[in-house]
């Protein structure tokens, strides 16, 4: 089976290389047969990579420890779910999985565009084929998943205990699907640049893929935060770790693109900027992978140092050279007549929103790479940790929230400052009122007051857009309000889906502010019957407990939780000892509510004395981060669905195409 997998990958490399050569030469010579051959080669590549993935999973499920990868990341006792996840637990397997997602996207793009966008497709296939070829070189020659050992071990080393968590089974695939999906708009952008067909076809075709990749990457980031929260046992969800940062950076630039592309659609402006954002987003996703896998920056997420770093650096350099070269070559064609009627307009708020989003991406990148710069310039290695990112990102986030609140109220083309102030007076008043109420209630933290006030500002603005729209539609059509609301959002899913995303962001900000500013903690060494308190909760140690499963042994402390003298639940934090002989992993227990999370960790224990060392965190409003994430996903999903205007536009485009054939 290992040999079969190796053979599949070698053949896939040949097929991908052929896809690149055939498509590019087919485009240059305008040979339909070569172009078709290139597209079919991409299907073949997908099929062969899928077979390789199936081979590796079969080897993992059959405990074939003669394969180094299987012996390193699986063992006999590993539950079936995690045997599936073992595919992306190590360097070689995760690159193979990445490649599989890329090939799936590529095959889907070829399939969806078999009758559309024909002039662009040869270069789309060439670009996707180039990226696939690079990853195939990696899995064939550098990070090989099917390497066999000279001596077969009796059992494998098993998966890292911290990865044995349901969120970890979903988080990496989400990140990969998001990251890799960003290759699709990049491929279309390259095709538009190479062919000189720089109308709106390339971004209209990929708009749905971009939103899909954006929200799946965002979901992956949130799931990663959730995993860190429930698994790592430090009571938080985001540590500004270099690998976390690497996923956030392209997400921020993709967010900027999704906003600025609206200006290009409406006014044909910012064409160079949008092209640059798509290129930047793809390059940053490759840079993120380079940071994760090269070992140049130490991180809890990093894979072991390997020879893969220089390869990624080379690929990144080549990608920059080709994409920036093409962009510069086509600059004269991309120049558009920029007209702005007023400084106070939707267009200008989008420009500032782009500035802050790209500025935020730059800040995170700068902070992540600054230790390397410091070492190169001064020879002193320093750390750029959470205090730096929190201090710098908070004002940028406040600026962005202000724009999120103002932007929907400003008209396209032109508004006046007086009209703007008038339109935002109710939302702004709500924000000020929220701050005043919280101040009167005793809140004195300036950051929290500003954050909650801005959240109210954003929330009221967004809800008012729905209310005004519903009222106006109801008046215009005579529909009852609920039907008018549905018709309103159904006819413009992108606009109102975007507003729902804004509400999701607002909820995330509320959760982050509450849980970071008002966090409380307590530590105690308890014997049976002892109690300790955090916030309004008192916990009493009832007993030490243990559970034994084929994969692990759990040892924990059972605590009764009281508030106001009333028992409200039982929590059992503990530690898992995996039989594969690795370090124990902390198993936190959480009592979650909309108001706060009571988060308990057992950091040490002595079963003989019946003694446990416990740490408790009280994290206010943390549940709103996950709820906000859900709202964000819902809004994104809704924004992806085709609406009436879009259907009308594509029908018109089809009619134009038919008319052009007829004449």
């Amino acid at each position, binding site marked *: 089976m290992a040999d079969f997998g190796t053979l599949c990958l070698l053949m896939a490399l040949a097929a991908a290389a052929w896809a690149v050569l055939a498509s590019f030469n087919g485009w240059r010579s305008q040979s339909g047969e070569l172009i078709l051959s290139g597209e079919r080669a991409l299907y073949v590549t997908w099929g062969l990579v899928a077979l390789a993935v199936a081979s590796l999973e079969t080897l993992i499920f059959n405990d074939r420890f003669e394969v180094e990868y299987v012996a390193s990341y699986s063992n006999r006792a590993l539950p079936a779910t995690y045997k599936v996840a073992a595919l992306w637990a190590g360097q070689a397997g995760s690159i193979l999985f990445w490649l599989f997602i890329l090939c799936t996207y590529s095959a889907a793009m070829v399939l969806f565009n078999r009758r559309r966008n024909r002039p662009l497709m040869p270069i789309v296939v060439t670009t996707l084929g180039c990226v696939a070829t690079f990853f195939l070189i990696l899995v064939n020659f550098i990070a090989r998943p099917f390497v066999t050992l000279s001596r077969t071990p009796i059992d494998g080393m098993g998966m890292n205990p911290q990865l044995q968590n349901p969120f970890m089974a979903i988080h990496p695939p989400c990140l990969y699907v998001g990251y890799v999906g960003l290759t699709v708009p990049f491929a279309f952008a390259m095709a538009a640049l190479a062919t000189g067909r720089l109308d709106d076809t390339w971004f209209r075709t990929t708009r749905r893929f971009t939103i899909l990749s954006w929200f799946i990457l965002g979901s992956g980031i949130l799931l990663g935060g959730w995993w860190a929260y429930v698994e790592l046992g*430090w009571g938080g969800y985001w540590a500004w770790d270099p690998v976390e940062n690497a996923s956030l950076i392209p997400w921020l630039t993709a967010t900027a693109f999704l906003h600025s592309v609206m200006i290009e659609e409406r006014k044909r402006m910012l064409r160079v900027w949008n092209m640059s954002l798509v290129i930047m987003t793809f390059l940053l996703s490759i840079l993120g992978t380079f940071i994760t896998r090269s070992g140049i920056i130490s991180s809890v997420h990093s894979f072991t140092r390997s020879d893969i770093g220089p390869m990624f650096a080379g690929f990144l350099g080549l990608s920059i050279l080709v994409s920036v070269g093409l962009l510069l070559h086509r600059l004269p064609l991309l120049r558009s007549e920029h007209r702005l009627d007023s400084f106070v307009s939707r267009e200008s708020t989008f420009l500032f929103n782009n500035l802050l989003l790209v500025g935020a991406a730059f800040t995170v990148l700068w902070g992540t790479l600054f230790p390397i710069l410091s070492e190169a310039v001064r020879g002193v290695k320093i750390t750029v*940790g959470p*205090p730096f990112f929190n201090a710098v990102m908070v004002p940028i986030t406040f600026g962005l929230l202000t724009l999120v609140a103002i932007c929907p109220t400003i008209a396209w083309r032109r508004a006046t400052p007086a009209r703007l102030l008038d339109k935002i007076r109710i939302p702004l008043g709500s924000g000020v009122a929220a701050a005043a109420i919280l101040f009167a209630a005793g809140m004195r933290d300036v950051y929290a007051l500003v954050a909650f006030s801005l959240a109210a500002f954003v929330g009221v603005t967004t809800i008012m857009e729905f209310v005004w729209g519903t009222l*106006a539609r109801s008046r215009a059509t005579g529909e009852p309000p609920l039907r008018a609301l549905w018709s309103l959002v159904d006819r413009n899913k992108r606009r109102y889906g975007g507003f729902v995303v804004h509400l999701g962001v607002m909820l995330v900000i509320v959760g982050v502010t509450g849980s970071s500013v008002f966090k409380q903690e307590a530590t105690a060494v308890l014997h049976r019957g002892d109690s300790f308190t955090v916030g309004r909760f008192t916990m009493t140690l009832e007993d030490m407990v243990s559970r034994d499963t084929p994969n692990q042994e759990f040892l924990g402390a059972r605590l009764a939780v009281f508030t106001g003298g009333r028992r409200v639940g039982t929590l059992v934090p503990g530690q898992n000892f995996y039989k594969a002989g690795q370090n124990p992993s902390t198993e936190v227990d959480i009592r979650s509510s909309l108001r706060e999370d009571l988060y308990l960790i057992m950091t040490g224990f002595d079963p003989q004395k019946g003694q446990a060392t416990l740490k408790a965190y009280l994290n206010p409003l943390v549940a709103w981060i996950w709820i906000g994430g859900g709202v964000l996903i819902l809004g994104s999903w809704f924004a992806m669905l085709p609406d009436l205007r879009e259907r009308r536009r594509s029908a018109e485009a089809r009619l134009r195409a038919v008319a052009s054939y007829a004449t």
Partner: protein
Amino acid sequence: MRPERHARRGRPRGRPRARRGRIGVAGVALPRLVLTGLVLAAGMASGGAGLRAATLTPQEQVETRLMCYCGCTDLTVRTCSCGTAADIKMDIAQRLAGGQTADQVVEAYVRERGAQIRSAPTTSGFDLLAWVMPFAAILVGAGLIVHLTRRWRSRATAPPSGDAPMSPAFDSRRLSADDRATLDRVERAIREEL
């Protein structure tokens, strides 16, 4: 002379004075407002961080300024829940109880463990660049946007469209004139969609 000067600058003749007035408010005051906002943001990042740090106890300040060296996570001593962090916290408490200031404790750790133990760059020398660069980049970007938008504005000749006439139908709804205008704007947009 005035029309000739306008012609030389490429401005249309007889542009209403009120429009020039709007340039004064929107074209000058808002860019200044944006730039002031960014400078305030930069100040908030450095000063605000200091202000917040001031609300922490010396023990908490030191814990926030040092990274835990347990090797399992990239966390400060304050947030890390491992045994190493607990030992460091105890050591910090002892040093502070021994009469050392927060700065002295941090410096002692830097001498023992190297500059990497600091959780954030210092605000002097080369490290200052880490703090300045993000805001400098955003300020330069803001300046560029202001410059470009002024240039693009001068090309625009379309008449104003923001202040829409009121729909008489709304009078019966007892809304204010401004609210009627907002409703008109939304209604017009929806009519376009239908």
